[in-house]
């Protein structure tokens, strides 16, 4: 956002990479990619790739941090140094800290945390390669990793971004579209009841546009949901 392109980004209804406005990039999902983890998954949307691992539930130390009636979730979203053009120095940036927090809040409503009092569940998300929509890609990976770990869940959590580019409402923004978009709305939700658990926005939109984008993302997100379920099935049926 903030940057203005001199040229049109959408020409004759086609986006830079040839997609239509409501088309999601190629999605790849695989669970069980990290043998050491209790659950794990790798998710790609085009060139954006996230790997998530879940460790736990395990007893939390020191004891004074334990909660007597619930498990605690700790979440770290991290960009690999080589994931973007300019190398990222290791260590959490402010952006990574904020995304770690909203990701945790996006996942918590899906979990029956009260089943594991006094424990901690660690969710680590690594963005191996970044080309837009990294936080929602990370949420998809974390959702699958939690399911792979056998965590009791109300539903899976689906992540997908919507936005506006030129005058067009689009979904699943790639990196360049993100830079030149009018607005970007990353969303996470539980598809069964359409419960929104992450909602952020950058840019300028009138309220109706916001509502349209939210609706579009909830609809298109169903495809992402199917992909998640497929990936989980593949694990058990191969």
């Amino acid at each position: 956002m903030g940057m203005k392109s001199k040229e049109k980004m959408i020409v004759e209804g086609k986006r830079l990479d040839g997609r239509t406005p409501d088309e999601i990039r190629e999605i790849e999902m695989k669970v069980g990619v990290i043998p050491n983890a209790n659950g794990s998954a790798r998710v790609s949307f085009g060139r954006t790739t996230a790997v998530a691992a879940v460790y736990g539930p395990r007893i939390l130390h020191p004891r004074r941090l334990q909660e007597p009636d619930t498990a605690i979730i700790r979440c770290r979203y991290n960009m690999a140094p080589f994931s973007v053009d300019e190398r990222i120095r290791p260590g959490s940036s402010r952006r990574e800290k904020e995304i770690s927090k909203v990701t945790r809040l996006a996942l918590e409503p899906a979990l029956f945390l009260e089943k594991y009092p006094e424990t901690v569940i660690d969710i680590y998300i690594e963005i191996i390669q970044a080309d837009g929509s990294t936080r929602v890609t990370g949420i998809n990976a974390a959702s699958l990793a939690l399911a792979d770990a056998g965590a009791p869940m109300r539903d899976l959590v689906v992540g997908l971004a919507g936005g506006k580019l030129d005058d067009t409402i689009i979904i699943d923004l790639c990196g360049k579209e993100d830079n030149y978009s009018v607005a970007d709305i990353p969303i996470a939700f539980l598809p069964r009841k359409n419960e929104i658990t992450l909602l952020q926005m950058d840019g300028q939109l009138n309220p109706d546009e916001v509502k349209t984008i939210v609706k579009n993302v909830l609809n298109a997100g169903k495809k992402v949901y199917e992909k998640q379920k497929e990936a989980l099935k593949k694990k058990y049926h191969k």
Partner: protein
Amino acid sequence: MRHDYVLKLLESGERLDGRKLDEFRDIKIEVDTIERAEGSARVKIGKTDIIVGIKMDLGEPFPDVPNQGMLRTGAEFSPIASPEFNPGPPGEDATELARVVDRGIRESECIDLEKLCLKPGEQVWTMFVDIHMMNHDGNLIDVSALAAVAALMRTKMPELEDGKINREKLKEKLPIKHIPITVTVGKISDKFLIDPTKEEEQVLDSKLMVAVMEDGKICAMQKSGDQGLSEEETSRMIDLAIKKSKEIRKLL
């Protein structure tokens, strides 16, 4: 016990301090509180009390926007403001606060950053927006965002003499283009409320922060809290935020 009482009251549409659900606490805006800053404001909403100070400095622009001034927003949860705050580098919540306030200013194009360029690619003005907390009684984001905007509106740029800053001569105002107002709407069961106190925040299901421009456009949002929202609830919360932003805007 207290927690349950606050919860029950809210669920029946009442509040401990007698306010209506869509009513703000008393709002006081004081400007130019810090004479040594280039701009400053202190905003109290109820017992929440926040000072924002603006400092102007020279810097090198980011390579991808070589002709734009820079905005840097910082927030510290100062330990004077609450028994739960400890000294140390900003945690998750302080970082989120700073980034959300920054986003409202940035995305609304509040300041004409191109007018803050001195030499493209080499030297631009940097605005440091520092959020300093005096007392925390809930709704930190709305109070901070309001104080930030009030401070920016009063900020005067120091003069340059031989390429050096002379802070004893402050003249021109910052080039303000737009004024974003941030309103956070809380949800509990089927009720929506605004301007929650710290006690109320502890029982909320979720919150939606919405930054609104003069023309009713939205320029930033951030959901918070550990429960989900339906599409319809989201819409209603956005509408309420826009409505209440107009009341606040009159105070500036």
